[in-house]
């Protein structure tokens, strides 16, 4: 079982890294990190701050785009090309296919983030001429960005398991936007009464909460990130991705592929 999942994951990874769009996006993100140097020069007194803010935002946004655009085609493309039938005609369970796809995409994103992070650190070194201990906090922000990607990957995969690529992209991006407002949604639930309160509270806990993952601002100001937050976010991302993947497996298991 483990070997089959690993095999699908490695194939997904290989297929993803062959995609030319991926390289364009990575190149663009690295370019943006480099451009942060220029932008930093016109931002009086906050050159380093701009490099960190712009660099990490580029990593996060481009990673998000990569996660969505590759994730949405993972299942539907296989159905369209009819390669899914070849895979499933072998002793591969449907859930193994979904889980393998998830790990393949997650691996792709981790590797992408690694390369984009090199761009950010190179830009930072160019501006500061040295690294200080506080710069290690950027690694925490990057780790949180990767955790965000895990959730986005699972969502893209969920939508890809029952919807067209276009609709999957719309759904996944919408959930990212809603997830950024999750804390407002919870605030709204706190002010509402009766059934609306239940509904809003349910929705607030159901959508992914991305705000806790965003520590770019505090890291840029060299403020430490609590170890407890790192643990909480790690567990939350793992549980949430597991929940969404389970949903994707459930849908895919019952989907009529004929």
């Amino acid at each position: 079982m483990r070997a089959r999942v690993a095999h699908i994951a490695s194939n997904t990874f290989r297929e993803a890294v062959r995609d030319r769009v991926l390289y364009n996006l990575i190149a663009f993100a690295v370019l943006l990190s480099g451009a942060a140097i220029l932008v930093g020069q016109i931002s009086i007194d906050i050159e380093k701050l701009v490099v960190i803010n712009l660099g990490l935002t580029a990593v996060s946004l481009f990673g998000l785009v990569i996660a969505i655009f590759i994730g949405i085609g993972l299942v539907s493309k296989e159905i369209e090309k009819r390669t899914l039938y070849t895979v499933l005609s072998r002793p591969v369970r449907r859930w193994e296919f979904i889980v393998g796809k998830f790990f393949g995409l997650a691996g792709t994103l981790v590797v992408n983030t690694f390369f984009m992070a090199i761009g950010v650190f190179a830009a930072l070194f160019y501006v500061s001429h040295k690294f200080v201990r506080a710069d290690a906090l950027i690694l925490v922000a990057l780790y949180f960005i990767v955790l965000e990607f895990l959730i986005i990957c699972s969502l893209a995969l969920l939508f890809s398991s029952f919807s067209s690529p276009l609709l999957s992209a719309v759904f996944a991006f919408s959930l990212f936007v809603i997830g950024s407002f999750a804390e407002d949604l919870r605030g709204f639930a706190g002010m509402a009464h009766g059934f609306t309160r239940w509904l809003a509270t349910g929705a607030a806990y159901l959508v992914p909460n991305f705000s806790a993952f965003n520590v770019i601002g505090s890291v840029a100001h060299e403020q430490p990130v609590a170890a407890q937050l790192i643990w909480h976010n790690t567990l939350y991302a793992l549980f949430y991705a597991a929940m969404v993947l389970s949903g994707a497996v459930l849908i895919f298991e019952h989907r009529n592929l004929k």
Partner: protein
Amino acid sequence: MKQRRTTSVIASACLLLSLVASVALLRHTDQLRPQSTLDEVLYVSSPKALKRASLGYDGLLADIYWTRAVQYFGFRHHNQATSFNLLAPLLEITTQLDPHLVVAYEFGANFVAPAPPNGAGQPDRAIRLMEFGIQNNHDNWKLYYDLGFVYYMTLHDYKKASEAFDRGSRVPNAHPFLRLLAAQMAEHAGDFNTARMMWSATYQNNQDQLIRQNAMEHLRALRVDEDVMNLQQAVTRFGERTGRLPASAAELANAEGLPGIPLDPDRHPYKLTPEGRVEVRVPDDFPFATRGLPPGYKPQPKFHSQER
């Protein structure tokens, strides 16, 4: 093949020509509208709405707004504008998006409070901005200094200034001069030495070019004010002694036992008018001076290079 090459050449020529024409047209349009509407427009004025719309990337948005605030002030100041209506809102948005961006508060203290043409003339908003900064960065002594600075320089409220310096002096690792300033306010609030101390501290503790240039201009103006005051007293003494006004600055210097005619910070000798008034040679070089200016003179906002 030949036909395709011809098409390519024509298309390339068209592309270049159109590019040059559009750039030229844009430049011409810019000349027609020197004060473009973009300069005075703030599409979204609510910091909270912007924070929501940033989808969590508020740090980057704050950097963009900070850059915009500096460019807005720099551009309008350079063009000798007399109003800076967007400066306070831009800085408020910047600091709401990133409450730890200390440089934005410092900029606000220096340029939101002073009256036009040297600032936006909104000391109340400057104070609100500083209090917001202190609330979010309560261990940063510079913000207490900036708050006291606004009370001292713009509102001349020495009691409040003293309170702000005193609050700042209790912050861990606060600069020792805050305690000194708090005490100084009580006894010598309006004198030249206190003002000089304040502007020197502003100059030394800031990296921002505009803030440093502004402090430098005030230090130059303070020297002029003090020199003119002393020379004017010398003129009065001369009159009391001789019953007439000195015929020239040289005669005055001679009577006071000075080695020569006193020079202003630009090494120009002060001039003495037939009415016995001491004036600087080039008033435009001292936009913040309050003495030694010709009657009815209106100062032009202008910064000199720091090397002077």
